[in-house]
């Protein structure tokens, strides 16, 4: 749910990074945070366990500049990926404008990817959203690892609606901004339609 503030001439959108445990959602946000100019970003918040696993969410506010006189602000969130945190995951999707699904390219994580997309679909539905229509981008992360599944096969298995898909190595930043731009663009195009 986009928040349009005519008084302060601001538009605020919410993007959620979804995906199975340890797929690199937080690493995506950390890369974006590290590469963004200080004046365009707020503080990054990570609610994590002592072992650095996301417990509730990571949050990063980003200022993308202005469009038609309105400051365009994106609030990026990650969800906790571990299966048993489903109640928390559901909460983060509240009011979402666009979703990035970060898939782990390693062969042994394909089942977890599939289960997580199903979980995303279900949790979106509970908030009244439909994965088939919401702005959405798919990222194949960890392309630098040895046991990765070929891109074509991942596409066949994980692509939901011919959404834009990106190969990525979030630790070095490959594909990270492309994924973000893709979903942000889709959100703005949606706004234009309304």
């Amino acid at each position: 749910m986009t928040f349009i503030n005519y008084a302060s001439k601001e538009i605020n959108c919410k993007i959620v990074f979804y995906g199975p445990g340890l797929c690199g959602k937080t690493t995506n946000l950390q890369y974006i945070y590290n590469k963004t100019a200080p004046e365009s970003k707020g503080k990054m918040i990570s609610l994590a366990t002592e072992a650095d696993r996301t417990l509730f969410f990571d949050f990063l506010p980003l200022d993308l500049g202005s469009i038609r006189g309105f400051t365009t602000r994106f609030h990026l969130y990650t969800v906790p990926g571990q299966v048993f945190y489903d109640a928390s995951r559901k909460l983060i999707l509240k009011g979402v404008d666009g979703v990035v699904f970060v898939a782990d390219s390693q062969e042994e994580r394909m089942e977890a990817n599939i289960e997580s997309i199903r979980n995303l679909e279900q949790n979106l539905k509970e908030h009244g959203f439909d994965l088939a229509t919401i702005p959405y981008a798919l990222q194949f992360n960890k392309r630098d690892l040895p046991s990765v599944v070929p891109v074509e096969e991942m596409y066949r298995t994980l692509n939901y609606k011919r959404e834009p898909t990106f190969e990525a190595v979030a630790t070095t930043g490959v594909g990270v901004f492309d994924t973000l731009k893709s979903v942000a663009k889709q959100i703005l195009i949606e706004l234009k339609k309304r």
Partner: protein
Amino acid sequence: MCAADFVLYEEEFKHLEEALRRLRQEANAKAVFLIDKNGQQIASAGETEQFDTTSLASLTAGNVAATDGLAKLIGEREFSVLFHEGQQDHIHISIVAKRAILVVIFDDRSSLGLVRLRVKRASVELEKIFEVMMQKGERGAQGSIHASPFSEITDDDIDALFGE
């Protein structure tokens, strides 16, 4: 996107700010914030410059969402008030008009009792403003208020945003 956008016009923004200013004064609070349940700040009053307001809004919304989840787990509709007591500063959080969160930060110059009393009164006023906002938002969606500034944006505008 299926949920309606949340649109705030200048007039209601001024009314909200005025109500928050009055609440801050009457409750003798340090700062007062009104936050959307999705974590966006709507309006504020008082000594807000000493706080990271974006983080405050996001964490408060997370806090309220988690507490809402807890309420449902035990069969309650909601916990409408949260209170965090610190050594010097305290935070009083309440739900207004079902969709917004009112945050009052105060210290020992005030008291929980006073804050609760003033929050109750202010909530009634805020709810009325929200009602007007929702009606305006609906009319806006039907096109009877000025058109969305985004109906005119071009692909070039969007590309420019990303420096392409």
